[in-house]
């Protein structure tokens, strides 16, 4: 079975780009490992799998990364997230009354870090704590946001390498 990055990029493992990615075996395995530990960790702590998918979905929309947003939208639908809640994530924060305050806090943080990382301050950490985030949950959320920022950029570069070969 192929890894998540090749799957989202539409790269076959035995294609030239698949061989190229596999030749950097440590980054290849650690990118997939990061997805596993940040989107589907065995012990998610206080940041649920649904919340993790919601954050990744929101970032992928802001970053205009269709493969990543479609992936997480499907996972949210499969987990029973309602159309109204999906719409609230898509239009965040205008319909945030449809979302739990804990998820609203996570999305507020991910929107800031995605759009304007230099504007982050200690006040955002305090806001997450006030919304019930433990220290570990704040670290997990920050790593998740940062991972998706990495992932969408890697996928954009793989997309144009594919276009170049076509």
């Amino acid at each position, binding site marked *: 079975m192929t890894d998540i990055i090749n799957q989202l990029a539409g790269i076959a493992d035995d294609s030239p780009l698949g061989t190229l990615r596999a030749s950097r075996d440590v*980054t290849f395995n650690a990118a997939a490992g990061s997805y596993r530990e940040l989107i589907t960790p065995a012990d998610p702590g206080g940041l649920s799998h649904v919340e993790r998918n919601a954050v990744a979905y929101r970032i992928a929309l802001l970053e205009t990364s269709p493969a990543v947003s479609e992936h997480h939208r499907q996972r949210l639908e499969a987990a029973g997230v309602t159309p109204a809640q999906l719409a609230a994530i898509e239009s965040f924060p205008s319909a945030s009354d449809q979302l739990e305050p804990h998820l609203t806090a996570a999305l507020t943080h991910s929107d800031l*870090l995605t759009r304007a990382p230099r504007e982050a301050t200690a006040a955002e950490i305090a806001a997450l704590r006030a919304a019930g985030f433990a220290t570990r949950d704040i670290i997990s959320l*920050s790593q998740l946001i940062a991972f998706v920022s990495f992932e969408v950029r890697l996928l954009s570069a793989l997309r144009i390498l594919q276009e170049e070969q076509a």
Partner: protein
Amino acid sequence: MSNETIGWTVEMLEWAPWLETIHEAGHTRDEVAAIEEAVPVVKGSRYFATLAHDLPALRERTALFSNAMRSAGGASNAERELAAVVTSRINGCVYCASVHARAYNVYARKPAVIEEIYAEGVDTPIAAADVREQVIINFSAKLTRDHSAMTAADLAPLRAAGLTDLEILDVTQAAAMFAWANRLMLTLGEPERIEP
């Protein structure tokens, strides 16, 4: 101390977390020792000792970071460090830039490149940069700011400068790794000057 107070520098800085480190979180000595054994970088760094609250994520991130910045063949160490500095300059991470500007200077021995990037940003040509460095600067900047609008045409300057598929993957992974690293360092703490 904020990013703005310190300003762009190649001096060695400290980084101070806004959250407690794993050493300040009330773990037993055995628990701390187990964490330090699992991810040894936790021992000497408040940054990693903060990230260690989510150990599985830190373990994967550390492997990805190390190999994105250093691996046999492909883009040179200097080229990967340059991609890291360009990304950090755009995102506003003074601490990240300082560390990787020093590393770039060790490998490239052309401090004028960093001086220009610090003073002018990355939107005008860097006089001290060679052709390969300039196309890496431009590619890293677009990947940071507007990756979704990139097309195959964005690869043409890299190809004209002689970059291979592997070198392009390496530059991509270094720049993208700093989309990651900048966001962590900017949201979890702030740079500090080292007091003499």
